[in-house]
């Protein structure tokens, strides 16, 4: 029979590059800063249109020191966590139910699609009248944004589950709940996490949109403030904070993927 030994075959350089996770993102960051500085110098646009990296950095230190940054980002983070949580949980549950009852899917899908194509500003009055101008509306908008990609990927993911394995579970007389837990969740996880990747990224925009429409706290408010005061560096600080949030969420999902899909990693070349 075959024999297992502990030797390693991989090229140590490639290994280093691919295994040290911070190396490549760092490279991208430097690349980006380089391009930005170049644009700043070459285009020679006034700073209120395109500030230099250094200006933005100075501004960042300033708002960091006077607490404005934390005051606002923490609020957005809070909205966004709630929105992401409720949006993806409800989407998953609903997606599961719909995948089991195609008739319901057909009945509801016009509403679901509709809910995705209504711009918030258009129904802002209704939202504010019904749910008030506070936290709830913003969380709702964020949750709505997250909702759809997760829902669709749950639907697609569950449909993908191998019929043979369904029969296997049936042969053990597994209950619906057991089928969900032991078969459907693990089998659709790759697609599901793909939906979460998109959803997590969109959730940031979702949280911001509500703030842009009307809010006195959060990164969206900071953007409005910066724009209102022609303080473009502040706008940039807020935008980069957003990107940071989105990238962190994305990385968390990627990390989950890597952990959950160990059995699939062999397919990576």
């Amino acid at each position, binding site marked *: 029979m075959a024999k*297992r030994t502990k030797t390693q075959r991989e090229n140590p350089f490639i290994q280093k590059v691919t295994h040290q996770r911070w190396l490549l993102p760092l490279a991208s960051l430097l690349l980006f800063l380089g391009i930005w500085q170049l644009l700043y110098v070459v285009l020679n646009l006034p700073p209120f249109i395109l500030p230099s990296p250094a200006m933005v950095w100075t501004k960042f230190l300033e708002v960091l020191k006077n607490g404005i940054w934390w005051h606002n980002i923490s609020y957005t983070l809070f909205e966004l966590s709630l929105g992401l949580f409720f949006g993806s949980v409800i989407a998953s549950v609903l997606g599961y139910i719909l995948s089991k009852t195609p008739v319901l899917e057909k009945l509801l899908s016009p509403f679901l699609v509709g809910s995705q194509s209504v711009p918030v500003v258009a129904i802002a009055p209704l939202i504010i009248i019904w749910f008030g101008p506070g936290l709830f509306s913003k969380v709702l908008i964020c949750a709505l944004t997250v909702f759809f990609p997760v829902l669709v990927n749950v639907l697609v993911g569950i449909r993908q589950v191998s019929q043979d394995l369904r029969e*296997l579970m*049936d*042969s053990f007389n597994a209950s619906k709940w057991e089928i969900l837990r032991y078969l459907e969740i*693990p089998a659709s996880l790759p697609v599901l996490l793909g939906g979460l990747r998109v959803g997590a990224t969109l959730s940031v925009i979702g949280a911001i949109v509500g703030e842009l429409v009307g809010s006195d706290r959060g990164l969206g408010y900071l953007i409005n403030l910066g724009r209102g005061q022609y303080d473009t560096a502040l706008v940039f600080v807020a935008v980069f904070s957003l990107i940071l949030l989105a990238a962190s969420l994305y990385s968390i999902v990627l990390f989950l993927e890597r952990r959950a899909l160990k059995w699939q990693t062999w397919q990576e070349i």
Partner: protein
Amino acid sequence: MNSSPEDSLVVRDLKVSFQEKDGMLQVLENVCFSLHKNAFACLIGPSGSGKSTLLRTLAGLIPYESGSIEFPEIHGRKPRTGLVFQKANLMPWRTLAENIALPLELANTPREEIDQKVNEMVELTGLQGFETSWPHELSGGMAQRVAIARSLVQDPDILFLDEPFGSLDELTRERMSEELLRIWDEKRKTILMVTHSISEAVFLADRVLVLSGFPQGIVLDLPIDLPRPRDEHLRFISEFVQAAATLHEHLKI
């Protein structure tokens, strides 16, 4: 056919068909037979005659159009059934050991007991050292052995096996069938096994059922009255050869 108190499975006039895009595909009709407790029956028949379909129907995976399937109670409770599929049908996200453990986890068996039973099964099927391998890292025969182990680990009363030794080499095959016979004998199970080898059927079974394609059903129900335990030299005695020849004859129909 009347069911006797000794029966553990009674099938009457079973009819099964599949809905396909251009109409219905009739697969089984007029299938009648019963298995008594502690029966070891083999099912043979040409490729596509509906053997797997019959087993999947018995295991409750496919609805039947008409007829009846009865499982009389054993020890005052509904009998547990187990099915080994024709494909190994392993979960790619579970390691070898986790795949074997699946039915136990479903039955809420305590972790320790699971570990112990899984270990037994790994040894029985000769898979030591591969407990943490993923299914895609296994050879065809190894995967099939995992599937067998998975069905045995839950200790079912009635075991349906669909060509379980299909991709095992002859030695492993012999070892596995011996094990199967031992378990059957020891635990008094009812076994219905599909095989494509006439000699394997005669060698292992009390009865061999021959399933012919639609609409004939079971065309032969041949009792095999060879002594047990059986060993290799039996293959050359006349009853064996006779039975094999009869089966061969009926397969051609």
